[in-house]
């Protein structure tokens, strides 16, 4: 999908949402969610290109493992952000906050091995 298509889809979705919001809230919310998911799915190939570039760069720099970890954290962050926004859009801000909390916990779990290695390094120095 090109940017023109994405823009057209976005504007169309907003138009229909605004039109239907006063009469059928549920349908409007569904349209909004569908449009968001379609746009996100359409953007995934672009992300794939960026990620392969980052992977190449990180492999050349010798930080492949670390880059993978950061990419995972970025993916978690993106997915959580979109989900939380959709939840808030649907009026379920509590669910959105929980999703963000879950994502933060997952990123913390992801960072844990590094934190442990760093602490071990510090402990090794302090021993």
């Amino acid at each position, binding site marked *: 999908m090109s940017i023109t298509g994405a823009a057209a889809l976005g504007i169309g979705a907003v138009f229909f949402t605004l039109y239907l919001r006063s009469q059928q809230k549920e349908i409007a919310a569904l349209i909004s969610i569908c449009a968001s998911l379609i746009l996100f799915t359409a953007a995934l190939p672009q992300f794939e290109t960026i990620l392969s570039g*980052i992977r190449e*760069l*990180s492999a*050349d*720099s*010798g*930080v492949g493992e*670390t*880059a993978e*970890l*950061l990419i995972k*954290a*970025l993916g978690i*962050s*993106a997915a*959580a*952000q979109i989900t*939380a926004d959709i939840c808030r859009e649907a009026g379920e801000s509590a669910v959105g906050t929980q999703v*963000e909390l879950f*994502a*933060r916990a997952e*990123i*913390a779990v*992801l*960072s844990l091995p*590094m*934190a442990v*290695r*760093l602490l071990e*390094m*510090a402990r*090794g*120095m*302090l021993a």
Partner: protein
Amino acid sequence: VKRALLCAFAGAVMIVLFCGSACAEEGIAAELYGEELEQFSAVLPDELPPELRGALRAPDGVETAADALDFSAVWARIAAEIRDAWPSAAALMLRLMGLLMISALFGGCGKALGGSSLTPACELCSTLCTALAAAEPLGAMLNSCRGYLETMTELVNGVTPIACALCAASGQLNTAAVSRAALMLLYTLYQNLYTVLLLPAVRIEFCFGIIGSIGAGVRLDALSRGVRRVFTWLLAMLGLVLTFTIGVQNVIAKSTDSFTMRTVKFALGSFIPLVGGALSDALGTAAGSLSLIRTACGAVCMAAVLILAVPLIVQLVLNRTVLALCRGAAEMIGCEREGRLIGEMHGVVGTLLAAAAMVSLLFLLILALLIGMRSTGG
């Protein structure tokens, strides 16, 4: 009775110093000080060229040692060490730069997503990655420093008996006593420097650096800077006091020895009939010959320090430069936390560099004072 005592003393001095003179002149001083020379040779680094290792026993030992300390030879060694150490420093730079680029990209993507609640978690993840990459070579550098200090301690331990034996043999008993005291002081300092000063300073700086970079809003860089200043000030003061004290003691001992030597020479020349003048001259020759061996020993020690210190100092300087470059790059691309962390690691490497430089300089200074000086009797 006085005359008899004087004659007996002169005879004893004559026997001891004539033996020393003959041995030194014929190049068999090694037999006299064989054990000390063996002990000294054992602590010399393996990288020392064989001709330099054998300089102590060779008649032209001073020239051989002086050639090793030649300006071009020193530069050639530094260049060779830079060539050897550059790949690892370049790898560190590549890794850090790569991480910084990814962190910057990551930060940009995070901001683009607009999630303020998720940004701190992502930043923490990114900072941890950089902290690991920046801290990993620190352990290796610390180990190199410890190894260097251990080798220097062994070198001081090895050089002490030979330096004192040579001083005492050339009639400089006070200088020998001062040499022993100074070298033992240096030995104690080297033995304790790592555990008492260097390691605590590095630990504190490292921990402050990690906490300051990971903890959002926690700024501990001023404290680390303070620790670094105290450490370098302590090192400088220690070096200054030690050099000054040993210098003053050395001058006093040298004057006393000179007076004693002149008195003995005068006594020999005046009170021993016929051969007194010849004995007096021989005494001077003996002291001069032993001074030559002592100078060769000092020059070999200096070459050994150079060979030991250059790899470590080159490694530390290169890594420090790389860290400084990466800190600059981090600040340029907006990775403030990563830049701060790399800056802290840069400071830690600076502390290690200060310790290595001080240890080498202090040894060279004390060596120049104790072994490199000319015989007072010659």
